[in-house]
C-alpha cells in the first residue's frame, strides 16, 4: 500500500518554512501562529512548528521577544531583516515553481 500520508507530509515539509515566514510579517506567538496557519488550510503539528520557530530564530531569520499582553508572558516572533529578504526570494521561487507544477499537472490531465 502506498503511504499517501507520508508523501503528503513530505510535500508539506518543503513549503513549511515559507508558510511560517508568510505569517510572521506581523508578530505572532507559537499558538496563535499555529491557529493562523490552520485557519488558512495549512495545519502544522505543534511538535514540528514550535521547535522550527527556535531554529529559524537561531538562523537569524526571526527575531523574538517575551511579552505579557492579556495573560501570561509569551514569546512573540517576527521576521528579521534577513528573514524578510529570504521570504521575498522564496515567494518568487514558489510562484515560479507553482506555475511549472500547474503546467505539469495540467499536461497530465490533458
Amino acid at each position, binding site marked *: 500500500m502506498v503511504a499517501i500520508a507520508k508523501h503528503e507530509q513530505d510535500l508539506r515539509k518543503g513549503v513549511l518554512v515559507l508558510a511560517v515566514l508568510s505569517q510572521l510579517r506581523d508578530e505572532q*506567538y*507559537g*499558538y496563535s501562529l499555529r*491557529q493562523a496557519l490552520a485557519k488558512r488550510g495549512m495545519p502544522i*503539528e*505543534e*511538535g*514540528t512548528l*514550535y*521547535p*522550527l520557530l*527556535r*531554529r529559524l530564530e*537561531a*538562523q537569524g531569520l526571526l527575531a523574538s521577544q517575551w511579552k505579557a499582553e492579556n495573560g*501570561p*508572558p*509569551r*514569546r512573540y516572533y517576527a521576521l528579521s531583516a534577513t528573514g524578510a529578504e529570504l521570504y521575498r526570494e522564496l515567494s518568487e521561487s514558489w510562484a515560479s515553481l507553482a506555475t511549472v507544477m500547474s503546467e505539469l499537472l495540467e499536461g497530465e490531465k490533458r
Partner: protein
Amino acid sequence: MNPDALIESYVAEVVRHLPRKQRTDVGYELRSLLTEELRGRVGDSAPDTAATLDLLASFGRPAEVADRYRPAGFTIIRPADAPRFAWISLVGVAVQWVITLIATYTAPATGAGDDWLSRLGTWWLSAGLGAFWWPGLLVSLSIVAAVITARRDGDAPDWTPRAASMLDRDHISRPLYVLAIAGALVGIAALVAAINLAEWWPGLPQPLLDAFVIDADFLATRAPWALVLWAATFASMIAVLVAGRWTRTTRLLAIVGNALWVVLLVWWVAAGPIFVQPYADSVTKGCLLLVAAICVLDLVLTARHLRHGIPEPAV
C-alpha cells in the same frame, strides 16, 4: 496526575536534552504553549489526564522533540559507510578472539585449577573484553574525522571532472609505479647481498655471517625458480607502466603471477630448511608465509576487481 503536572514533567524531559543555557527559556515557552494547546483542544470543559496524554503523545517523544530544537548536527558514520564499518569492527574483534583463544588453550598448563573454564574466564577478562579497543578506536577516529570534515565543510574541494577522473581504478600513477619497481629492485638486491654476505663482506662479525648461511639444497633446487617469477613479474610491471593503466590481460597475468608466487613460497617453506641456522630459518619462513598471505589477499582483490563489472539486467 493532574494535567499541569503532566505537562511540567514532559517539558522537563524535553529540556533535559537541550543545552543548559536554553533550558529555562525553551521550557517556559513550551509549557505555556502546551497548556494553551490543551485548553484549545478541550474547549470549555476542564482538561483531564486523557486529553493531556493525547496531546503529549501527538507532540512526540521528548528526545525527538529536543532533536527538533537543535540545529542539524554532524554525521559520525555516513549511512553508506555503516555496513562496512560494522563489518570491519566485528571482523576485527572476531580475529582477535580467535587468535587469543588459540593462544590461551594451547599454552602449557600451569598446575592445579588450570581447567578450560578458568582459562576461559581469564581470557574473557583480559583479551576477550580487551578486543573491544578496536571498535572503540574506529569510532574515535570517525568522530575526529567527522569533526574535521564538519569544520572544513566550506573548504571542501569541489567535485570537478579532474576529481571524478580519480575514480578510474585502472589508471596508475607512473611516477609512483616507477618508485614501486625501483623499491622491488632494491629489495631483490638486498636479498642477493644477504645470500652472498660472507663472500662480499668477509669482515662482518661471525655470528652475523653464520645467520645468513643458506642451505645448499635450497639454493640448488628451490631458489632458482624465484628468478623465473621475478623476471615474469617485472615484465608484467613494465607492461602496465608502458600502458599507463591496468587492462584485463595484465590483471589476469597478475592473478596468475600471485598464484605462482604463493605456490613457490609454500614449497620453499614446506620442502626443507632455507637457512642453516634454525632460528634464522624459522624467522624467514614466518616472513615468507606472511608474504604468501599478502599475495593471496592481492589475488582475491584483483579477482574481485575483474569480476565486478555491472551485469546487464535480464529483459
